[in-house]
């Protein structure tokens, strides 16, 4: 099996009020060195696949088709083999 970890982030030019709220919360706890906080999503996929290249291609089409919205988001996929029946 292969684990594909999909990281979805807002594009740089898109403002992120949730991230700004997190930054303010950190400041209220006296963590003052935070210049910026950006929210994103992580989606972990366990693929019934052994071929790393094929898995990477599949995960990429999943991102392009539905997982990410290219108007506002960027994505990045990490691929690794995993042992046995991951749950």
């Amino acid at each position, binding site marked *: 099996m292969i684990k594909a970890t999909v990281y979805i982030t*807002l594009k740089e030019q*898109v403002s992120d*009020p949730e991230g700004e709220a997190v930054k303010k919360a950190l400041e209220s706890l006296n963590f003052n060195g935070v210049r910026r906080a950006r929210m994103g999503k992580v989606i972990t996929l366990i693929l019934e696949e052994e071929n790393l290249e094929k898995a990477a291609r599949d995960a990429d089409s999943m991102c392009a088709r539905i997982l990410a919205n290219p108007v*506002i988001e960027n994505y990045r996929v990490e691929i690794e083999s995993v042992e046995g029946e991951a749950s």
Partner: protein
Amino acid sequence: MKFGIIVFPGSNCDRDCYHAARGVLGHPAEYIWHGEKTVEGCDCIILPGGFSYGDYLRAGAIARFSPVMGAVMDFAEKGGLILGICNGFQILLEAGLLPGAMLRNKNTHFVCKYVYIRTENNGTRFTGGCGRAQVLRVPIAHSGGRYYIDESGHARLRDSGRIVFRYCSENGGIGASENPNGSLDNIAGIINERGNVLGMMPHPERSVERVLGSEDGRFIFESLAKSQGG
């Protein structure tokens, strides 16, 4: 004019749309379950507000792949009228029937209140009954209604009169303080190039009776009916 109202799992304004179209305005209307594969016999399809598929992933992202959406895309292709309200607007954006995307509201809050919108283009089939720059009082209720599009896309919309509604003050003034969610250029509703698909965040179906606080939503439904000849 016969309205077809798509019902997704998690839609919650479908009944309001039905009530407005049929109960108040007296047009034939029917519900169309999202699992259907046809929208035949309808003149105007409404994608109602709500939280289709729990807004999982992104609002509208999963609904746009519902079985019925194939038929809705074909219907749009043939020039059929489609009105997306709130979550319905988000679905139209995700489906690529309208350009741009929705982001979380700028203040991160769910905003539920009456707002004013200015009709920027009353030459569409959805707004033909409105006056020039007419201000409508309609409610909004959303947390992800901050419309976003890149600069060139924005210029294309603006220059071709496809920004149909913008958030404004009671007398039609447009500024940052009239913007309830941080939408680019106060955009509240846009239309496609062909003029048959309109998406708007405010709810015209919730403002068709005096008892609800406004009847201005009638202008949209009545414009549609008139454009079809009754």
